């Protein structure tokens, strides 16, 4: 019966099965290293689970006694479905579930069991029709050849050109096609009534996976696989924003809504430049206000001043400030700043908080995200800055992060001019932060500030970037940064958001 089928077609079947099986395993290992970090552990665990599950599958195969061909095709389809959706499923659910690791290993185990069932069943089906010793040698040989092909192509072709999600879906489709093809190949061994059902199911599995393939871009975006460009070690979605922490090149990075907030390798440059000019202008800063800056890194710099008695941090998102108090790498980086008894935290939109009456602050550090949306743009308006004045006394100093004067000059000077329109005397300044490029700030006060007199009162050993000379140099702009006079950012025009979108859109 089967003798009429060309033998190479059967072996081709084995080859495809072998490739698919190994691809699923490699996908799980790679995905686990991506999202959980520590690739040695992840690969080790995945391979171990997978191999042992294959053993379980092989052992279970003895309990299948009848209708071997049908069982083989059913398993093929189940494997195609599970393997095909494994990577997209794991990627998408990762940020939302606490039991990711059990889910990952459970998926790997199930895939392993199905793969383990495949070859024993196929060999039992074929042994009636072929010479047994010949069969064993050829099946195993094709199996190993398949594994070799998969392991070479996976890192060189599939991951770079298709990505994890597409690779997963495409091999699921291939696997389901083998199932469908087998209903023809093994037709003589199948009972008449089962054939249409099996074919329908194959088509449904193929259909679902193809649909997934069309949505792959969206799935990938959700998973941020391509946007963050590092290994995601922590992600969460709060009611306000998406927070992700990635790890690469000896440091870790915090992203909010896909925008880099800091890189632990060079954030000290950004935060020293943000905080110290405003702090050194005062003899004894006691009360300090920080708006934005839920990562606690600006607070870390502020707490270096022994005169500081109170720091009030106003940050929109409790998820962010909690993370800064409890996520070990971040707590280490901010030196437990948010756990300091001098620090109190208010989780509120600063735009609303600014309406509350409070005692004036000696120093205000503003570290809002870049004005990429209207809800952030309102925090850089003349209205907001005028309200800010009620929180200051005559000698208070305010520093504000104001995006890049090199990449987004209109945006940068819009912040400066808006501060001036609200009645501030403003000194623009900048620093170089490798992860960001040339970064801009504003030092604002109600009276004129003489930056040439600035002297750092804290020990040089406590700072990595600034000394007295480089502090004064921050206020000197090079040739390629020229003053501009764009529109004032008001609530009723949100000019800054439009400049920012125009300038950074072109840059990205």
């Amino acid at each position: 019966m089967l003798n009429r089928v060309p033998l190479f077609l059967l072996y081709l079947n084995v080859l495809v099965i072998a490739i698919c099986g190994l691809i699923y395993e490699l996908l799980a290992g790679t995905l686990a290293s991506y999202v959980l970090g520590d690739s040695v552990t992840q690969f080790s665990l995945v391979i171990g689970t997978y191999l042992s599950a294959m053993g379980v599958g092989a052992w279970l195969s003895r309990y299948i006694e009848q209708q071997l061909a049908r069982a083989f095709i059913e398993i093929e389809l189940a494997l195609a479905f599970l393997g095909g959706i494994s990577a997209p499923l794991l990627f998408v659910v990762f940020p939302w579930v606490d039991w990711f690791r059990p889910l990952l290993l459970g998926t790997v185990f199930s895939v392993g069991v199905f793969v383990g069932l495949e070859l024993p069943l196929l060999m039992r089906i074929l042994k009636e029709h072929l010479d047994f010793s010949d069969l064993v040698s050829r099946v195993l040989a094709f199996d190993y050849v398949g594994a070799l092909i998969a392991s070479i192509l996976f890192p060189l072709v599939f991951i770079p050109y298709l990505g994890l999600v597409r690779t997963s879906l495409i091999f699921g489709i291939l696997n389901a096609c083998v199932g469908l093809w087998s209903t023809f190949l093994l037709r003589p061994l199948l009972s008449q009534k089962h054939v249409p059902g099996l074919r329908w199911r194959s088509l449904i599995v193929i259909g679902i996976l193809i649909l997934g393939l069309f949505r792959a871009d969206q799935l990938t975006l959700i998973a941020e696989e391509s946007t963050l460009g590092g290994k995601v070690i922590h992600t969460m979605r709060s009611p306000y924003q998406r927070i992700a922490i990635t790890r690469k090149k000896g440091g870790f990075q915090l992203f909010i809504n896909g925008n880099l907030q800091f890189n632990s390798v060079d954030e000290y440059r950004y935060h020293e430049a943000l905080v110290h000019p405003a702090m050194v202008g005062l003899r004894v800063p006691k009360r300090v206000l920080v708006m934005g800056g839920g990562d606690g890194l600006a607070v870390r710099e502020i707490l270096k001043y022994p005169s500081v008695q109170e720091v009030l941090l106003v940050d929109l998102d409790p998820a962010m400030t909690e993370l800064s108090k409890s996520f070990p790498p971040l707590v280490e980086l901010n030196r437990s700043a948010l756990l300091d008894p001098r620090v109190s935290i208010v989780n509120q939109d600063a735009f609303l908080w600014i309406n509350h009456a409070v005692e004036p602050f000696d120093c205000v550090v503003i570290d809002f995200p870049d004005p990429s949306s209207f809800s952030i743009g309102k925090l850089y308006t003349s209205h907001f800055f005028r309200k800010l004045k009620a929180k200051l006394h005559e000698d208070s100093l305010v520093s504000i992060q104001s995006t890049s004067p090199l990449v987004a000059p209109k945006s940068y000077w819009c912040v400066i001019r808006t501060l001036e329109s609200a009645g501030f005397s403003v000194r623009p300044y900048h620093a170089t932060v490798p992860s960001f490029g040339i970064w801009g700030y504003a030092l604002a006060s109600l009276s004129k500030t003489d930056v040439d007199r600035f002297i750092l009162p804290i020990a040089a050993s406590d700072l990595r970037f600034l000394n007295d000379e480089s502090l004064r140099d921050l206020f000197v702009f090079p040739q390629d940064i020229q003053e501009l006079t764009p529109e004032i950012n008001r609530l009723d025009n949100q000019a800054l958001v439009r400049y920012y979108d125009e300038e950074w859109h072109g840059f990205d």
Partner: protein
Amino acid sequence: MASINRRDLISALLGAAALRVTGCSTGDPATQRLKIEGELFSPDFETGHRFRASTAFRKSSVAGQASRAAEPIGAIDEWKEIPVVIVGGGIAGLSAAWHLKRSGFEQFQLLELEDHLGGTSRSGENHGFQFPWGAHYITTPMPENTHLIALLQEMGVVEGLTSDGKPVVAEEYLCREPEERVFADDHWQEGLFPVAGSTQEDLDQLAGFHQRMLEYSLMRDEQGKRFFALPIALSSEDTQSRKLDQISMLQWMEQQGWTSSKLRWYVDYACRDDYGLTIDRTSAWAGILYYASRLQNGVQASQDVITWPSGNGHIVKHLQASLKEKLQPGMMVARISPTEQSERPASCELVVYDKVQKRFLGYRCNRVIFAAPQFVAKHVIEGFRPERSTAAQDLPFQYGWWLVANVHLSSRPSDPGFPMSWDNIIFESKSLGYVVATHQLGIDHGPTVLTWYYPFADANPSFTREQLLSVPWSDWVEMVLSDLEIAHRDIRSLVTRVDVMRWGHAMVQPYTNFLWSETKRLAAMPDRNIHFANTDLSGIALLEEAVHHGVRAANEVLDSFHDHKTAG
């Protein structure tokens, strides 16, 4: 009277598109499934009809009206004497009171039928939110609109004037960007005109339309008056431009060769938004006024919008706070009996029903400012203008019905495209979309209230007034959600409360030929010692008009006292 089935209600009022989205509107109402709270409100129809329908001076009432026959007026418990009574506490009545007071005249009392002041500028408060129940914005007034500017200055909304008299509005009261967006082709885009997806022809016609409006805004007569100004009393009396009142906005657009269906929708939206009338019934003069009155000095952009979380209720609250005990809500004026004008000082008697104490009061005064709508006048004023009935029959005052819903959400809905703005409209919906109560406060996250508007603008209404009044709250909620669902697929899961207001006879309609009609002109003239001051006297229901008529009537009254003194 047949009650209306929920499906018929939604398909007739919103169109079949809303039903298609809903899909499930035949089952249990969303209010039951989702445990949505809320109430159904309306102005006090009942007390209004209770004593007014037939009073002593309407002996001619046909017997057929017996079903609505009014109760007889009871014995007067107490008589009060005060020189001036203002009837009606909407913006017009409040403005009259405000102007009397600031002119140093304090011997007046304002009586309002409803328990709340403000008329269609009312606002509400619930669960820590303030939201409008009707009118919710004004545009920055032109320098010539001095009374409104003075009011806004008093409120601290206008911070000062430029050297050429233009008001400078405080930043926090100017509508915060993003101001408006439109939902078309499954996503939101900025602005009111769905530019994405429009053809070059659509855009050319839009540009031509705006250019034309700009030209109209620049036209001045010999006295330097604008052809299209707010309040319209400040407009030129040029007869040529007034001929535009004789054709509909649609006819005028056809004359101009503007056939783009998108442009027609855009202009139709404006007519329904400001006047509660469709483009084919709105007077072209009124339609042009909407745009041309808000353009200044050849600048393409319209005058800035001024708004508050409680909408124009903010102005009501200010006037309420400054006039306090001069204002008495819950007082239904059942009858006004003026004496002949020849008598000096003129005197007038009012019979007033106190809804709280459930008793009748009498007022004797010299002058009445009647700031209630015209359709009430004939039921209340003894011997009201019998000579004018013919003119009024040809071109009567017509008023539109509105439905306003305040939709409380537990958090922000899914929102493809441009972010949530102050004004959010759905392309080709029969609703006017919604404004966001938290927008002006800068609250961009978490719970909010959407105020959704629906004008009953169809020329041939599908349902009678009685049928509409019998529609239960849950069916109105279903209609509101069916419309919002077009743009926000997950809205049902976020709604916690929906309050619905049915405004009957809410806004006067500037249909063709009405604005410069004899009916309208005569209605604003005093009747014996009664002076009239309601928005409807302008034929368009805008706050600028209400303030104008309130101040004008107050001035008439002030003049009469002044004349009397000098004569004596």
